[in-house]
C-alpha cells in the first residue's frame, strides 16, 4: 500500500482497496477555494407507475423488488438513536435472504448496535462507510477483523460524498415514524417520533431505490409536516415497531451539575464574552451533553441579560436550544438531528424550528452550507494536541470509540470554534504532543477551554488579545500540558500495527486526513 504525508503531517493511503484513489488532505479550505466544479451524481431512477398505495406485502418482498444484489450499498439514518430496531431488522432479513458483501453506509451507527459486528463476521457486510463506531463494532474494526478499510466521514462530508457519487446508495431503508401509503413521511409524529429526519432527506434524494419503513401508516396525506416527499419513495413497508420509544425519545438533556464541567463551560463562555462575538445576530451551535451544553446556559443568561437576539441556532438540537428559540433568543433554529424528545414537539409547534438536510447543514462543496455562517461552535474532544488537532474517534487504548459527526464541519465553518474538555480525565491528560487520530485539523480550532485555563490557537492573535484584556486565565498549551503531566505522568504509547490501516478518516472535502491502525492485542 502506498502512503503519502498530508498537510496535517499524517500518513494516509493513496488508494482505498476496491474504492479508488484518494487525495491527501491539503488544508481546510483548499478544495473549496480551488473552485473546480464538484461532480454531481443524481442517480438514474426508474419511474413508479401511477398507483394509490406503495405498501409492500413484507420487508422481504420489498427487498426483492428493490433489485438489491450482493456487493451493493445500503443506507440507513440514525435518528432513532439507541431505540432503533430497523437496522438490526433489515440486516437480519438481508442475511436470511442470503445477501453477502454489502457496503453498509448509515449516517451513523447507534451505540446499541453491537450486532453490526456479527453481520460483518457472517459475511453480510464487507464495507462500512459511516461517521464512526463505538462498542463492539469499534473493537471489531480496531482488531482488524474487516477485510476492507472503513471510511469515516463527517456529516457534511457524507452529504458531499453522496452528492458527488462517492457513495452510491443502491437501497436506502429509512425508518419513518409517520408515513402514508404513497411514502410521504416524517419523524415529528407517531409513537416512534424522533424529531428531525435530516439525514433521511439526503439519502432519499440520492438513493437508487428508497424503502420507507414505518410502524405508523397514516391516512393519506400525511400532515401537517412532510420530511421526505412521496416522489422520492419507491416502497413502504409496515412493521410492528421501529424500536423502543423510551430509548428513541430520550428525556430532555439537562445542564450538568458536575462542577468540573461547569468550570470548563464557564471558561469557554468567558472567552466568547470577551471576544465580543455574542452580539445581536450571532449564530450558535453546541453539543448535547456535559460542558458543551452548559456553555449554552451561560450564553442564554448573557443574551437575556443584555437583551440580545441571535440569528440562528444550528445542529443537533437539544431541548435547551428549542427553549431558547421559544424565548425569542434566536430568530430561527435549523435542525438536522434532534437530540431529545422535547425537540419533537417544538418542530411541530414552531415554524421557526426548521428541519434541514445534511447538505444544507454542512456540505462544503455546495453553494453555501449553514455551518459556514456559524459564529460560535462549542465542541467536545477525547484528546487534543499542541497543534490544536482534535481526536474524537479513538480512545486512549487505540480502539475506535467515537464518531466524527459534525465536528470538523462546524470547526471549519464557525468564526470561533472552542473545544471544551477537562485537562485530564480518568487519570489521563487531554493534551498530547500528537493526537492519535485527527478528526478536526488544528488550523480550524481557535481555542481549548479547560478547568485550568484557556489555550488559544496562536493563529488567533485577536482572540488572545481580547482574552488578555478581559484578564482571562490564558495558558500556553505546552505549559498546561506539562502542568497536568506532573501528576498524571505521560501515558505510554499504545502498540499499533502501522502496516495495517483499518479505517481512514476522510476530511469533509473528500481528501484523506488520517489513518486508523490495527491495535495489537
Amino acid at each position, binding site marked *: 500500500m502506498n502512503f503519502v504525508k498530508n498537510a496535517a503531517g499524517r500518513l494516509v493511503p493513496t488508494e482505498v482497496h476496491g474504492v479508488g484513489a484518494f487525495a491527501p488532505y491539503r488544508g481546510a479550505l483548499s478544495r473549496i477555494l480551488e473552485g473546480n466544479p464538484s461532480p454531481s451524481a443524481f442517480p438514474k431512477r426508474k419511474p413508479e407507475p401511477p398507483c394509490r398505495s406503495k405498501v409492500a406485502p413484507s420487508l422481504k418482498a420489498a427487498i426483492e423488488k428493490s433489485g438489491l444484489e450482493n456487493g451493493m450499498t445500503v443506507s440507513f439514518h440514525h435518528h432513532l438513536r439507541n431505540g432503533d430496531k430497523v437496522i438490526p431488522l433489515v440486516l437480519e432479513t438481508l442475511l436470511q435472504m442470503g445477501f453477502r458483501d454489502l457496503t453498509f453506509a448509515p449516517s451513523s451507527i447507534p451505540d446499541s448496535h453491537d450486532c453490526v459486528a456479527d453481520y460483518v463476521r457472517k459475511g453480510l457486510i464487507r464495507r462500512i462507510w459511516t461517521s464512526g463506531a463505538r462498542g463492539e463494532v469499534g473493537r471489531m474494526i480496531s482488531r482488524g477483523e474487516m477485510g476492507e478499510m472503513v471510511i469515516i466521514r463527517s456529516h457534511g462530508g457524507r452529504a458531499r460524498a453522496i452528492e458527488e457519487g462517492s457513495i452510491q446508495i443502491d437501497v436506502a431503508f429509512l425508518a419513518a415514524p409517520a408515513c402514508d401509503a404513497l411514502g410521504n413521511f416524517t419523524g415529528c409524529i407517531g409513537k416512534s417520533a424522533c424529531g428531525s429526519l435530516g439525514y433521511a432527506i439526503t439519502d432519499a434524494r440520492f438513493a437508487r431505490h428508497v424503502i420507507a419503513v414505518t410502524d405508523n401508516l397514516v391516512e393519506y396525506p400525511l400532515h401537517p409536516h412532510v420530511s421526505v416527499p412521496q416522489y422520492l419513495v419507491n416502497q413502504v413497508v409496515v412493521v410492528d415497531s421501529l424500536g423502543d420509544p423510551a430509548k428513541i425519545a430520550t428525556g430532555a438533556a439537562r445542564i450538568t451539575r458536575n462542577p468540573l464541567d461547569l468550570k470548563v463551560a464557564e471558561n469557554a463562555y468567558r472567552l466568547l464574552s470577551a471576544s465580543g462575538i455574542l452580539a445581536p445576530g450571532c449564530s450558535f451551535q453546541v453539543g448535547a451533553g456535559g460542558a458543551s451544553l452548559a456553555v449554552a446556559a451561560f450564553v442564554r443568561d448573557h443574551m437575556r441579560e443584555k437583551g440580545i437576539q441571535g440569528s440562528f441556532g444550528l445542529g443537533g438540537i437539544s431541548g435547551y436550544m428549542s427553549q431558547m428559540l421559544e424565548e425569542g433568543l434566536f430568530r430561527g433554529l435549523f435542525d438536522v438531528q434532534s437530540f431529545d424528545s422535547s425537540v419533537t414537539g417544538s418542530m411541530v409547534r414552531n415554524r421557526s424550528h426548521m428541519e434541514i438536510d445534511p447538505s444544507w447543514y454542512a456540505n462544503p462543496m455546495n453553494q453555501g452550507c449553514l455551518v459556514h455562517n456559524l459564529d460560535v461552535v462549542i465542541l467536545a474532544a477525547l484528546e487534543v494536541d499542541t497543534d490544536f488537532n482534535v481526536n474524537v474517534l479513538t*480512545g*486512549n*487504548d*487505540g480502539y475506535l470509540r467515537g464518531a466524527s459527526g459534525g465536528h470538523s464541519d462546524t470547526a471549519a465553518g464557525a468564526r470561533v470554534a472552542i473545544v471544551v474538555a477537562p485537562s485530564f*480525565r*480518568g*487519570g*489521563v491528560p487531554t493534551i498530547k504532543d500528537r493526537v492519535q487520530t485527527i478528526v478536526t485539523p488544528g488550523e480550524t480550532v481557535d481555542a481549548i477551554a479547560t478547568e485550568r485555563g484557556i489555550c488559544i490557537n496562536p493563529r488567533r492573535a485577536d482572540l488572545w488579545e481580547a482574552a488578555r484584556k478581559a484578564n482571562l486565565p490564558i495558558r500556553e498549551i505546552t505549559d498546561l500540558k506539562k502542568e497536568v503531566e506532573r*501528576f*498524571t*505522568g505521560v*501515558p*505510554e*504509547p*499504545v*502498540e499499533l500495527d502501522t502496516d495495517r490501516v483499518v479505517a481512514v478518516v476522510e476530511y469533509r472535502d473528500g481528501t484523506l486526513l488520517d489513518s486508523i491502525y490495527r491495535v495489537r492485542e
Partner: protein
Amino acid sequence: MEIAQAGTLESADCLVTVAPAEEFGLDYRGGNRKIYGERTRKLVLETLKRFGISEVQVTIQDQGALELVIRARLETALKRATRGGMAS
C-alpha cells in the same frame, strides 16, 4: 500478613487488594492498563520495597486514579495487611 483491601471503585480512584503469595505478582486492570502499565509496575515495586515486602500478589482495579492515589491506596492496603506494623 493477611489479605487486605483499600480504595473504592469510584471514578478517579482504584481498588487495591494485597494478598500473601509465594512471589511478587501484579494484576493491573482497568481502562488505563495499556497506557500506564509500566508506570504502575514501577510504583508498586518501589512501594513494596519501602515496606520491605516482596512476596505479595497485588491486584489493582484502576478507575482512572492518579499515580499518587494508586500509591496511597497501596500503602493503606499494605498497612492494613501488616496491621500498620511495617510502614516507613
